[in-house]
């Protein structure tokens, strides 16, 4: 049992990060903390992709006569795209938080809900 857990430690870390991020998004009322949670959540998926690309004993995928086994470069490329998407999402989210702060004067979800309820 323990061996199964240890052999797949990369998955456990990904799942742990995923849940930490997801919980932060759901449980925190501060909009910036929500974005931080969202980032951790996305990062866990990046890790999942990156770690599945590793081939045991494989080297970096650069063609050379001395090596036969290479790691899979495709997930890295995919995740590069996903990272860009993540950066864009964070930037847009933070821009929205700035605008929310300017027009509401707060970034706490419960206070925002109260103010939205009045108008």
């Amino acid at each position: 049992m323990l061996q199964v857990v240890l052999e797949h430690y990369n998955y456990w870390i990904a799942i742990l990060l995923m849940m930490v991020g997801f919980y932060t998004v759901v449980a925190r009322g501060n909009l910036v903390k929500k974005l931080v949670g969202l980032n951790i959540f996305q990062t866990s998926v990046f890790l999942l992709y990156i770690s599945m690309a590793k081939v045991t004993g494989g080297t970096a995928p650069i063609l050379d006569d001395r090596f036969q086994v290479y790691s899979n470069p495709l997930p890295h490329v995919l995740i590069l795209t996903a990272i860009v998407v993540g950066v864009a999402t964070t930037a847009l989210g933070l821009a929205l938080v700035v605008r929310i702060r300017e027009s509401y004067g707060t970034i706490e979800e419960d206070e925002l809900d109260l103010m939205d309820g009045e108008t």
Partner: protein
Amino acid sequence: MNALLPHLPALQVVVPLVAAPLCLLAGRGGLAWIIAFLAAAAATVTAAILAYQTLHNGPISYEMGGWAPPWGIEYVVDTANAFILLLVAGIATVVLLFCYTSVGKEIRAGRQHLFYCMYTLCLTGLLGIAITGDAFNVFVFLEISSLSSYALIAMGGQRKALTAAFQYLVVGTIGATFFLIGVGLLYMMTGTLNMADLATRIPAIQDSRPVLAAFAFITVGLALKAALFPLHLWLPNAYAFAPSGVSAFIAATATKVSLYVLLRFTFTVFGADIAFRNLSLNLVLLLPAVIAMFAGSFSAIFQRDIKRMLAYSSVAQIGYITLAIALASHAGIQAAMIHIFNHGLMKAALFCAMGCIFYRIGSTRIDQIAGLGREMPWTFAAIAAAGLSLLGVPLTAGFISKWYLVQAALQSDMWWLVVLIAVSSMLALVYVWRLVEALYFKEPPPGRGTVAEAPLSMLLPTLLLAGANIYFGLDTRLPIEMTDSAATLLLRGQVW
């Protein structure tokens, strides 16, 4: 011209994609509008040609950049996604006509070109999702369309638009990330991202945990994006506080495209056998769909803002579409796709009409719009036509949807579903009547002067959309032929 024809699938996405930065460089609202309109019109023509080709010559495969699939990204057009492309591009073009005056009033002059830049990017994303045959490419386009729609919604005049956009951003990102996890798990098991290639490899490993988990992640992620009950909470505020043109465009297309991806993954990639026989997706979808039909319509009845009411009505209509998908039969898929099309027409017309009212009185609250029907007769006519279509009255497009839906339910021996569909349509009658009553039979609120009819540049696109609701209720050849062929292709599963 003939040299361009083989490259139409690429141009479908590339033209709006190139138009977006051009809008940004244009720097002025008017010029940006022309660029955006030309791009959207070109996309509509492209989609129409593709639809014609797929209907008569069968599916088209396009190798992006000359890299052969499954290594390169493949664009595949068949009748199913050509139909969606036609809907998205067509609605985008007509709503853009409407935007010229509407955006002129609702968005500050210095920001209008940014609006059109985001609008064309959103169009690019939605078209890309529909046309691509590559699972990861779907994610990329999904995020392009989502990110631009968050920005578009935040451009709404009230400050609530900001909180609505933020909420949508958080939920949308979770949905897209779920989809990404699912695609990752599939890649881990099969070593491919090409949908057709995935479809041939999955049956051999269909009972393995990662494949089942991938299916669950993809379904939940897409359900979030499609606002399927109970994952619809982001939708009402997003539609209610977005600028009028954005509400019309997004309400008619964004959730529909996600539902198409759900269809594509369920039937083509995983195959109906895995989804419905092994995992009983029909039951998983049926219950939320039925609750959505009732909860959505019921919430709509109690809304004081008409745009919010229409948004809740969308939740109910998405319920009908999902219900049809859950039947998992030829008739069911056909009913789902017909309703995707017809509901797009209805909601685009209704939101445009609300935009006309907003243009004149600056509000869409039910107590403010009282008596407007007599002062804005053409806008009222558009609302009446689209409202009747929403109810499913004969001679409107909505009737065709309901007719196929009921037939599909009967074919599956679920007569009780017919009862539920009929009862929930009665709820729709309540809220549509509330709208008509306020517009036509109530006295205007004190202090409001005479209101003129909306300007022609907004009225014509609205009437065009409302007219389409009548036209496709009378001449059903296009949607019926396309969806009949699409349902056959989807049910056959396997490679396109």
